[in-house]
């Protein structure tokens, strides 16, 4: 079993749900946060969201720090 990070925990929204929404409406990270609240509370999912928007990945198996890239 490997580490699985697939959602914004505070808002309980799966990355796989967030990605199509962001793509459909052309959201960047800031707009996505304002619209869904994800990444705006504890902020721990922000690097994952950024990565998701850049690469299209929705499931992560490793820990990404805020200043990773």
């Amino acid at each position: 079993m490997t580490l699985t990070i697939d959602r914004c925990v505070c808002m309980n929204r799966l990355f796989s749900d967030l990605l199509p929404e962001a793509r459909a409406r052309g959201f960047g990270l800031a707009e996505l946060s304002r619209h869904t609240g994800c990444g705006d509370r504890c902020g721990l999912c922000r690097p994952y969201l950024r990565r998701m928007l850049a690469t299209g990945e929705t499931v992560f198996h490793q820990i990404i720090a805020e200043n990773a890239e």
Partner: protein
Amino acid sequence: MSTRQRDALLRRLGGPAGITALALGVGWLAIFFAYRDQWLGLILALLTSVGAFIAIRRGDVMARQRRARLEGAISAAAARNRELELLRRLGSIMLGVRSSGELLEEVVQLAASLLEAEGAAILLVVEEGRFLKVAAGAGLLRAAEGSLVPVERSLAGWSVLNDQAVTSDDMESDSRNYPVDTLPAHLERAVCVPLRSSGVVIGTVCAYNRVDGRPFGEHDIVLLSALAEQVAVGLDRATILEETRRNERELADKNRELIRVTKLKDEFLANMSHELRTPLNAIIGFSEMMLMPEMDAASEQRRDFLESIARNGRHLLGLINNILDLSKIEAGRMTVHLTRLDLRDSIRGAATDTTSLRTAKQQTATIDVGEDPLMVVADHTRVRQVLFNLLSNASKFTPEGGVVSLSAVRTPVPLAIPSERAGEKSRLVTRDAVWVSVRDSGIGIRPEDMGKLFQVFSQVDSSASRQQQGTGLGLALCKQFVEMHGGTIGAESIVGGGSTFWFILPVEGPLRHPA
């Protein structure tokens, strides 16, 4: 033969027919004597002529008298008809009228024309029976509408006090008269009739004439009394109608308010469930992640997750506490524990409590509370709660790097004293108080949103995508707490230029009405 029969016979003999018959008899005698060539015939013929002349004159006079009597009867019948017509119209006014004011206006006009008076007025008892108010006036009395007349020393008042109709031909010399300054002409003649509603005298109906006008008599009292009786019935009806309409209006208002509150509660519930679920999501989600066996390795992340769980737990507790406080206030079970405290300590304490909020956004705070202690009688916990709320709001709505300024000063302010009796307006009394303000350099509040700031369950932006979290309870709670101390709370704001929230606490604690 009775006396009456004899009188009738005499009157008939004295009438033109009797005199003519007598003259005829004398005429025949004159012919008889003339035939016999006696001089008496000439004299009798002369007498006949004189008798005929008298008979003609008598007939003339009688005819004139009879015509005058007839004319009198006809005009009296016409006057009766007119009076009856007017009284009938009164009946239809009573049925058609929609308010008591309208009724009085119509009736007073009718009273003036009914009595053919130059002025008429309806006066109602006001000021606990000490004064009469001219509720409606017609003709010369129109200008007196709204003026007050003392019950003592006035003709109208006399009629009210004695529950009796009164007439006067010379008001000026009448000791019961009270001159009303607003009247243009010298009114000398008056008639006043009491106005009763369910047996109680509630005012009077009066008619007036100038000194050259017609004096009032018994018949006028009868007419005016008939009118007064009807007016009382109409007034009762109008009052009931008005009351019904007012009740209907109140019910409609209450209904609208109920709908508004229900809508607010619905919105609140929607917001609230979102606000309560979010920290629970975090608590459950991060706990689950920490329970994953792979997590053991990443001790750095464990710490982040634990911090998140703790922070969200505290946030949830705060939310629930707010809800409980507010429901306690709504149920009337909230009490304040008053002690004498220095507001400067509370302000500094609240500033320290909210330091973490500001450092997270690189905001700075300035505190200006002066050198002297700011002692007030207040509930320590509630004051801290209010300050904490205002400070965290200020941080929340101020962008990164902004400034939050706190200040407090002691000053005399007018404060409302609670009224002693229900329905009475509260009075303003100047008391020493401490004025505390929290100013931010945030986004500001639009003028149209200022009104709902302190309402329960309201948030300026209640849309689902709103940027700022919160329940919409914080400011409502602050208002309740400040008002429990006898103070007031308010806000001023410029859109884009920041907001200032202030509250005033009376130095001596909640004001009670003077013993």
